[in-house]
């Protein structure tokens, strides 16, 4: 697919706006509000670098293409939160390409019935063969998609069977509560295998090169034009078969790196949506006329301060606790997060009452207690340690680190703040796990505490940047991971796990972050766990 074709597609599909612009030559600047009721303009700070989530090197913002342009077998439902905003519903799995599914009697396989009327964007039918090819691809290409599939115990192509044209069967390796939800994440998207195979080569059996630039899906939107670093234009798929046809015809997603500019654009009404706004802007713009700010705490995510257990003073639990008692939580929350998100400090009991995750840690700011603990641990005179932060997340990390630095100084811990460039951050913090004291953030897509523990508290796992190891956690976590939530053993195990990490605090929770989206004359924004923009439900108001 070349530039030419996509441009032609853009022009022929553009109808309304092109006409609008030429009919109204006197309109010098046409604001978004006047751009027509079926066009939505959104701004984001990030670059979409691929249209294929399976590709190596595809970045997070690109995942939204998988959401908007491709369908999956199933999807999550939608619920309305207390504040009236929409969110996906983790508890409800809904049909998408599949119209129904059932577990086999032994519970070791799931059989999906596909919609017979299902069509790809090129008009060809969606068959079980396509699903199998797509799943085979996801588990074979390696990297992130394979890891994510594995989280749902989807590991080998042999697990996937196309029974007939519209019947698809997944054989399970183990019973796991994670399998079905994992089918609703962006990764197991369904690709038009006929088209993809045409462009596959011996070196490139999975058509990585082709699908990287040219989506072949069945989703609600097509990609009308894509200029990495500039914009992506979605165009409605009027023949969408997996759900109600979206209300808006086109969505222009503009990349504007400067947050100040994004804010200005939204304030001036030149765009309908600013996705992933800084907390400060969200705080200040909420309540303004015409602009709706939707702030949703990110599920299963915590911003935390991590002392690394590979380094001497932090091997002592009391030192970690001392730090936990010394963080100026309220100031950090107000200054770094502008109060957007949920506080995770000041819990009253050292044992959790329920299995909600994240929930308030039993710490608050108490420098005397911190000092006492430090004395007890033999570090009464304090020590020096670098406090590392990620340059690309300095918007929240820097103020948080500065405030933490000040309070740590009060109990005698001298810190120097080290900004690490984005490219190095992941290597240093997660892969080599060599940062003695640092800020960290992890959020699990699958909304279970055990899933969080699996990634962040089990030794050697990627997000356990504290090099934490606790024998009990090591046994409890794998046990709980696949266990259904309803299982009577589940809650006690989780509570025990929470109690342990509260006591040992290898990760000191600062707050639960939130995703801020500002909209203007726009309804239907829905929060998703993947924190990317789902444009399917949007409508102008």
């Amino acid at each position: 697919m070349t530039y030419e074709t996509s441009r032609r597609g853009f022009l022929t599909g553009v109808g309304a706006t092109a006409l609008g612009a030429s009919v109204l030559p006197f309109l010098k600047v046409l604001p978004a509000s006047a751009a027509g009721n079926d066009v939505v303009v959104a701004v984001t700070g990030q670059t979409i670098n691929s249209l294929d989530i399976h590709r190596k090197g595809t970045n997070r913002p690109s995942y939204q293409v998988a959401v908007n342009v491709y369908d999956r077998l199933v999807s999550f439902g939608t619920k309305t939160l207390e504040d009236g905003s929409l969110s996906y519903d983790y508890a409800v799995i809904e049909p998408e390409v599949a119209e129904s599914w059932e577990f086999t009697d032994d519970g070791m396989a799931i059989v999906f019935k596909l919609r017979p009327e299902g069509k790809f964007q090129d008009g060809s039918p969606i068959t079980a063969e396509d699903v199998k090819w797509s799943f085979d691809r996801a588990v074979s290409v390696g990297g992130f998609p394979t890891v994510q599939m594995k989280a749902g115990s989807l590991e080998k192509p042999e697990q996937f069977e196309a029974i007939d044209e519209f019947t698809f069967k997944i054989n399970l390796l183990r019973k796991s509560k994670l399998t079905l939800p994992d089918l609703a994440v962006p990764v197991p998207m369904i690709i038009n295998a006929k088209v993809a195979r045409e462009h596959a080569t011996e070196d490139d059996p999975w058509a990585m090169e082709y699908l990287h630039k040219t989506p072949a899906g069945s989703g609600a939107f097509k990609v009308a034009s894509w200029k990495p670093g500039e914009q992506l234009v979605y165009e409605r798929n009027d023949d969408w078969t997996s759900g109600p046809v979206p209300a808006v015809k086109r969505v222009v997603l503009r990349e504007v790196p400067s947050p100040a500019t994004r804010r200005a654009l939204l304030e001036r009404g030149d765009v309908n949506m600013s996705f992933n706004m800084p907390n400060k802007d969200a705080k200040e713009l909420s309540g303004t006329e015409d602009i709706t700010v939707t702030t949703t705490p990110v599920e299963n995510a915590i911003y935390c301060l991590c002392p690394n257990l590979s380094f001497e003073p932090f091997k002592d639990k009391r030192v970690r606790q001392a730090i936990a008692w010394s963080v100026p939580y309220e100031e950090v929350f107000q200054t770094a997060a502008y109060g957007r998100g949920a506080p995770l400090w000041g819990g009253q009991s050292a044992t959790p009452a329920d299995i909600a995750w994240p929930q308030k840690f039993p710490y608050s700011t108490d420098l005397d207690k911190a000092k006492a603990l430090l004395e007890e641990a033999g570090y009464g005179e304090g020590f020096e340690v670098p406090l590392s932060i990620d340059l690309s997340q300095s918007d929240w990390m820097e103020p948080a680190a500065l405030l933490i630095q000040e309070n740590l100084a009060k109990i005698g811990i001298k810190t120097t703040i080290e900004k690490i460039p984005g490219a190095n951050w992941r290597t240093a913090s997660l892969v080599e796990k060599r940062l003695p004291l640092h800020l960290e953030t992890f959020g699990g897509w699958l909304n279970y505490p055990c899933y969080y523990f699996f990634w962040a508290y089990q030794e050697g796992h990627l997000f356990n940047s504290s090099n934490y190891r606790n024998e009990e956690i090591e046994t409890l976590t794998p046990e709980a991971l696949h266990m259904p939530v309803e299982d009577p053993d589940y809650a006690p195990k989780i509570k025990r796990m929470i109690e342990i990490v509260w006591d040992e605090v290898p990760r000191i929770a600062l707050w639960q972050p939130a995703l801020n989206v500002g909209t203007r004359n726009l309804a239907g924004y829905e929060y998703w766990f993947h924190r990317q923009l789902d444009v399917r439900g949007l409508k102008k108001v």
Partner: protein
Amino acid sequence: MAGRLSTIGLRITHAIPVILGVVVVSFLLTRALPGDPAVYFAGAAANEQSIAEIRTALGLDKPLTEQFLVYAGDVLTGDLGNSLSTGQPVLEDLANRLPASLELTLTALLLSCSIAIPLGVLAATRPGSAVDHLCRVLVTAGVSLPTFFTGIVLIYVFYYLLGIAPSPLGRLDFIYIEPDHVTGFYLIDAAIAGDWETWIGALKQLVLPATTLALFTLAPLARMTRAAMLSALSSDYIRTARAAGLTEDKVLFTYAFRNALLPVITTLGMVFSFTLGANVLVEKVFAWPGIGSYAVEALVVSDYAAVQGFVLAMALLFVALNLVIDLTYTLIDPRIGFETK
């Protein structure tokens, strides 16, 4: 003429070691960048194995010399590799983005020249006067402004507060359709297509970033114009021309200005290449899809191919620019090619 041609030929031969040097230095520089691109691009939930897979895919597991040979070989065949952050071939990215940077830079320089040169001439004809001092203070103030700061202030005032300027959204507001690709310069392409609506749209987007850059480049140009004019005006041939009764206009423009043009052109060349570098910050502020912002993003994520491609493109541009300056010189100054260097 043969002398001039051989001067230019000599310049081209001089460029070869420079380009070689740039290839080597850019390669080493990118390898020295911190961080492991394999880790970065393996994504959020990657494990050791998937990182290793990516590393192999990128060829980063090979020894450095081998990586360099592979790279040098690819460069020779015109293959600059794929950018990891945009996912596109670097050559394609550069081809798309270079015109944007050039259009911005050239517009800025055009604007800058049209103010700085008359200002410099004016100051040179009245050295030591209030006009002279005023010019000096004004242009110095311009060059003292950090471009990113000017850019932000201009956006705030003209877009946010006054609402005169269009939204700082790159080269064209989304309501316009970009003109058919001929040169990649929107102003030219739109003019070719006869689409004046788009032409004006593109021009409006250009005004603020070009002003930002122009403010910054006024000083060297105005200063050099002033100095060159002063030195030309104090030279013997001006006295001869005056003694022969030539009109002041003729003396000023045909005699003094043409001679003063030589150092001004040299400065212009330096300013041009400097501005292309300084673009980085302006492009970031104005979301301008040029190669400067491309390079910054690539650098931050250790995107080797993109950084190398960018540096190589800039070096070639620099060499080409010097050739253009040499050619301009030979057009203006007949002495070129006869003097020993």
